């Protein structure tokens, strides 16, 4: 099986360890991966901020680049949500019939990581080892748009050594919301305070999620407050084994 890896713009720049972990994991699972360094961004930031024409040009770029891919794997639920929820509207308004057809053909082949592992590969136990107490943060897009449900938790439950600590208010947003965290920085911070409280109450060492965006937000506060609790992408935990443990971050 082959898949094309799409690495979200901020993961490429800020959290390359997520992409590296996906590569390690898929190598281990025997999936052939390609990565096209011509890729940039799915357009979510522009779309959600109201810059529709810009979002469209990035969306078009995405479809053109991956239209012949066997499948596209994106380790970020919000980028997948962008593609599923917003591309149709953008293409209906600004796209050509050809582009719309290409997109419709491509859409069922776009996967978020936990979807790819469980739905496409049919694995729940990826043979990982991560001897830590971990809480899972459900990012809003994974929860409500992709409806990944308990797929990430099922993957985590099968990680040897991992102790899963459920969090209160699982369905409540951490307050990131992209440019919301800047435009409404104070309200966003108030939301974050509640989330961090819930994370700390789990007594977990790590807070894991499908999205580095939420994790950047939650992790930013955990670090500011010297809590010692770290954030980690699901891919990093799943890539981790006894012989090849997760890259430990600064």
């Amino acid at each position, binding site marked *: 099986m082959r898949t094309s890896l799409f690495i979200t713009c901020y993961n490429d720049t800020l959290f390359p360890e997520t992409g590296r972990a996906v590569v390690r994991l898929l190598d281990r699972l025997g999936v052939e991966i390609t990565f096209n360094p011509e890729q940039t961004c799915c357009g979510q930031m522009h779309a959600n901020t*109201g*810059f529709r024409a810009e979002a469209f040009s990035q969306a078009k770029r995405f479809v053109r680049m991956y239209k012949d891919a066997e499948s596209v794997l994106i380790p970020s639920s919000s980028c997948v949500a962008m593609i599923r929820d917003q591309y149709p509207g953008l293409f209906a308004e600004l796209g050509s019939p050809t582009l719309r057809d290409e997109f419709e053909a491509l859409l069922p082949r776009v996967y978020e990581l936990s979807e790819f592992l469980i739905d496409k590969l049919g694995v729940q136990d990826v043979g990982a080892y991560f001897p830590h107490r971990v809480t899972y943060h459900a990012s*809003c897009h994974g929860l409500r748009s992709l409806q990944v449900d308990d797929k990430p938790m099922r993957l985590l439950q099968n990680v040897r050594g991992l102790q899963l600590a459920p969090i209160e208010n699982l369905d409540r947003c951490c307050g990131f919301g*992209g440019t919301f965290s800047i435009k409404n920085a104070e*309200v966003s911070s108030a939301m974050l305070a509640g989330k961090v409280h819930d994370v700390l109450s789990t007594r977990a060492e790590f807070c894991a999620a499908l999205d580095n965006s939420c994790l950047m937000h939650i992790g*930013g*506060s955990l*670090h500011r407050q010297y809590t010692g609790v770290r954030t980690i992408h699901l891919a990093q935990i799943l890539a981790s084994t006894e012989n090849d443990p997760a890259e430990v*971050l600064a």
Partner: protein
Amino acid sequence: MSHAVLDPRVAPEFPKAALPVLRDTQLRKNVAHATDVIQAKRAKLVAEKKDWQELRTAAAAIRDNVLGNLGDYLEQFEERCTAAGGQVHWASDAAEARRIILDILREEQAREVIKIKTMTSAEIDLNPALKSAGVHAIETDLAELILQLGKEEPSHIVVPALHVNRSQVREIFSKSMHLEGLSDEPQALTAAARSYLRNKFLTIPTAISGANYLVAETGSVVIVESEGNGRMCLTLPRTLITLAGIEKIIPRFEDLEVMLQILARSATGERMNPYNSLWTGVTEGDGPQRFHVVLLDNGRSEILARKTERQTLRCIRCGACQNTCPVYRQTGGHAYGSVYGGPIGAILTPQLMHMEHAQSLPYASSLCGACYEVCPVKINIPEVLIELRAQVVDQDRHKTSRLFDPMYMGMRMANSVFASAGRFRAAQRLGRTALKPFTGKDGWIRSLPGLGAKWTITRDLRGLPEQSFREWWEKQGRKMP
């Protein structure tokens, strides 16, 4: 409690209006507690309906049918209501609605009116207009009464005094009703309100109400409530004026089967509202003998004409989106600077203002989608928020004042960067160099200048790693397409 400005034309922008609220310990506790209680009740009653999703689909379909044929249904309503002895008035905007109502009151020689809770009357600033005309309006909904006596503004669509707790209610009542030694026990407080209101019900012959639904087929008006004070206003006076937005129509009487179930469960977490009042025109010897309905447009037909935004008008004002919203949870309703706060207010208010005011509201959301999930008529609020953001940007992007706005500059630059992998790489390298002076020895950034400072007010940021993913991939000599 701070004084709130709920006029979108003059209210401060959302982020600014939110600041004092975030520091208001009492208000935040009140809002979190009240929304938790209502949400828990709602969740329990929704869970017991196995066909909840089907009900939502049915309710959305009923509302969409209305919006697709609104003109016909409104005319049908007018015809049936008039035939039953009611008088129907059409108001294109708030000023016209106020004028119609004041004319009726003048004819009635009314010096006082009793009112049932109606957000629509707050939308058209009715109470100040009544006051200027020398008409004393008495709110009879318990929450509205608390706000009126405490000189407070509503902060929630269904539970307007949600931000006030009972010890604050005790203070307000004891001061305005001159009741020394009043306790803050709910029974004592309701007894005080009851004795205050009972006299008003029995002596004031004119009432103003809103409407939950207008039934086109029968010309009936429907109001649901929990206290029975509304029932008093609907039955005792000689004259009743009902103010309703034109979108409140439902086609058939039997549609109430769906619409009443969905409203009670979503709004207050009840299987059915304690009081469901339905009336059709005038009945001799029973209830008000003069009955007026004022149908208010006030920007609604403009919303109706727009493809994505039209769904906003499906709203049945249940407030479920407010209760679940993590933003509203922090700020309460007043920060929205409108009688309609929370997620629905964030999309409705700017549209009612013809996108000329309240432009910070579409951005007052993290787009988490909790509102859409609970909405009983399936309004995709995030989708409408994004649509309105695009309208704000389309309006603003060519203004010279936006030329050097950091957000607009950043977005333009990012677009050019994302259009080419070469530029993206260069931007990554540039970012690494630019952030280096702000990055500590531990690799973390604690403080940034400019827009970045908005991030670092409460959050650290990990500095940029030495190698991007694409650089790593190429170094590995891994497969490229």
